């Protein structure tokens, strides 16, 4: 499958897909999308990169082991529920703030933090499975 065309286009395709996955993640609260689907898109992006250029470059690009990314996601997800405890409301109550950054009002919330956690878990888990399967020579 490692044709020249595929190898040349794969990095661009991957970056576009990762960008798109973040877009899907962030719009999720109001439009179709969200952390789960975003994570799947990002994972397939890395899977494609792996098929095209081999697994080692993907692992270098990811810096962390995909399973650590999943673990971090789980931690972020659980932490987002704990944040609300410090405001004196029950565990996992959604909290919202609307800071104005560069003149634009942005809605930040603990559900968004949680969704980012979901995104990282799905990304990390699927990517580690896909990369593990692609890595046939080493094992």
């Amino acid at each position, binding site marked *: 499958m490692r044709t020249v065309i595929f190898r040349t286009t794969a990095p661009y395709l991957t970056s576009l897909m990762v960008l798109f996955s973040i877009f899907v993640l962030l719009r999720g*609260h109001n439009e179709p999308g969200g952390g789960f689907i975003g994570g799947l898109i990002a994972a397939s992006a890395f899977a494609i990169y792996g098929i095209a250029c081999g697994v080692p470059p993907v692992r270098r690009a990811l810096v962390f082991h995909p399973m650590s990314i999943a673990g971090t996601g789980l931690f972020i997800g659980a932490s987002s*529920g704990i944040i609300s405890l410090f405001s004196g409301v029950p565990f996992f109550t959604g909290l919202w703030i609307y800071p104005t950054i560069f003149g634009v009002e942005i809605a930040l919330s603990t559900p968004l933090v949680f969704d980012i956690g979901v995104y990282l878990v799905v990304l990390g888990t699927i990517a580690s499975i896909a990369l593990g399967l692609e890595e046939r020579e080493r094992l």
Partner: protein
Amino acid sequence: MNAAIDGTFIAILAPFFAAALAPFVVRMLGHNGSWLLALVPAGIFVHFLGYIDQTVGGAGIASVWDWWPGMGWPLSYLIDGLSLMFALLISGIGTFIILYSGGYMKGHPQLGRFLSFMFLFMGAMQGLIISDNLVTVFIFWELTSITSFLLIGFNTTKEKSRRAALQALVVTGGGGLSLLAGIILVQLVAGTSDLSTLLTQPGLLQTSPYYMPILLLFLGGAFTKSAQFPLHFWLPNAMEAPTPVSAYLHSATMVKAGVYLLMRIQPIMGDTLAWSIILPIFGGTTLIVGTLLAVRQTDLKLMLAYTTVASLGLLVMLTGTSNEIAIQGAVLYLLAHSLFKGALFMVAGLIDHGTGTRDVTKLGGLAKAMPITFGAAAFAALSMAGLPPFIGFVAKEELYLGIWGTEPPFLALTITAVIGNALMLVIGFAVAFKPFLGAKVETPKAAHEGPLLMLAGPVVLSVCGLASAIFLHWTSVHLVGPMASSVAGKVLTPALHLFPTAIKANLILSLITVALGLVLFFRLALLRGIMDRVLRTIGWGPDLGFDQFMNGTVLAAHRVTRLVQPGQMNMYMKVAFAMTAAAILLPLILLDELPNWPEMPDMRFYEWGVMAIAVIGLAAVLNAKNRLTAIVALGIQGFAVALIFMLFGAPDLSFTQFMVETLSVVILALVMTRLSLYQDDHRSPVRTVVDGTLALAVGGGFFLLLLAVVQQPFNAELSDFFREHSVAIAHGRNIVNVILVDFRGVDTLGEIAVVAIAGLAILALIRVRPKTRPKAQPISDNSNVGVVASAKTSPAQETTQ
């Protein structure tokens, strides 16, 4: 009772935050970071000091923080004399242990991780003794087992420490399960698992028909944690851990959790025939066995470890008498023991650090090189030996007074206690004086004094052993009285004297103990030889038994696995699908709930088109000559389903379905290439019929089930709720996403945890390699499709939620 978070809850959580920060502090400040980190337990100590005046007179302060309403797991605390004493010991000794760790592990690359584990343990232990709810007690109880496992096995490269860690986890974790069963029974009998409520109903559990099982289950937890004979063996083995761990977990705090539990339940489960038989027998046996085994050892840490076992036995024995004076003795002894044993362990570490050996026969004349260490060791050993004017003496006087002349078996208890205490004196002196006095012996390293970080702990703890005796009035009013009151279940005001006021039986017993101890001390070498020979003759011990037990368990598990999992993937899938079909179809047929055949809906041409794609995909799967084609064709079918979702207004679902289908095809194809299966998928006619029947049964079953579900009247309550509140209270227009991350966020949290764990399991499966790898030999049937099936279903299940 207040409902909000207060300072004590912050104190409960503080060690966990410190655990998260410790690696970063160490990275920035090196081993001196422990000065900074020690402020956390020090702060907690100061916080709990504020409660001292409130618990005088046996009062308890309880508070609930319902952090997760509806779940029924409020975080609640109960501070009375008992938990306050433990809280002060844990945070007070913890402060010095953190300092000591900084000095002991100086330059160790994993110091940050080590301190992190220590703080995790501190938080778990503190939560255990302060929780009001028994379920929370259990959670913290198991957390102490897990952190203890991590700390014992800290030297992961040493096989002995790995074995010791596993052993401690199996023994104490198993005991924890027994405790859990006991807690569930208590909940069923009493209707509550809040200690503060249970303590107001003495007699309720004792008279219940379930008293015996409850007691035995609780004892199962307490005896394993507090290393009672014959389950004591894990504690000496745990000495493989770095010395700060031994000093903190395995002498001053964690092993006392079992004693804490017994003292805590004494008012509600104690003072019965079973209680006063079982506890003294196990405790007394442990006391004698522990001291005798200690005599045999020459390693300083192991000598101390066995005396810890013995001391725990003494405490259990005293608690078992349910006698007020004996309980006061136990409380005093617990305080004294934590102080002197913590100090002595740190001294052992200092000697090891300063000379390079811990073998008592290879040490001597260190007093000149290590004067401060010697001073601390001497103070601690005098307290351990029960000599005035140390707290150990007061404790021993009180406990002799308690067991002398009470119930008929007192003579046996007294003799046990005297022998045990005499041997304790022998070991105390052997640890604290032998290495320092006498002729100087060459040691692997030139003997030198330890750094301030390491000296602070033993010096302060051993001086506390003296100070608490000198200011005995304060100690007895503010610490011993309240704690003894909690244990006895009624207000006690102990009358303690540092110096005996009259010649009573307890003073004579003390004199006998000291005399016996000194005689034995000067015959230590002889005694050691005898013990050595005796144990060699016996040849078998519980430690060996543990190995036999573990091997037996593994063998049995292996046989069962071979029986139910013969390794035929084909067979597993057949059984799984047959069961699925049966589970769906049988209730529908037997309960006569088969759906009516629906009318043909009026479909648009493009809907027909999508259906046609699905059917074409299906035909392609069935006709595929080769496996890869079949997988891709299955993808066509999946895309058609995604299109249907799209047409009927579920863009999120359809979006996810597209991605899941794509990834499934990719992953299945990857698995195919790895498995080196035969390219074509040839099946015999018989197999085709069997497989086809199964496929039709499962598919048809789902079809009928869905039809039946759709024909039920639709309850719109939930949909209306979500539609109404999605924007109003959750600020989101995408209802699916709002449900996932907000309304049902906790469910999703559970699901992503499952996804991550499933991922770990799959990763492990991918990496498994058979020992003798059949090279380039194709496997003839669909083995290992299960890997893919689980990879595929776990995310898919998430979306269909």
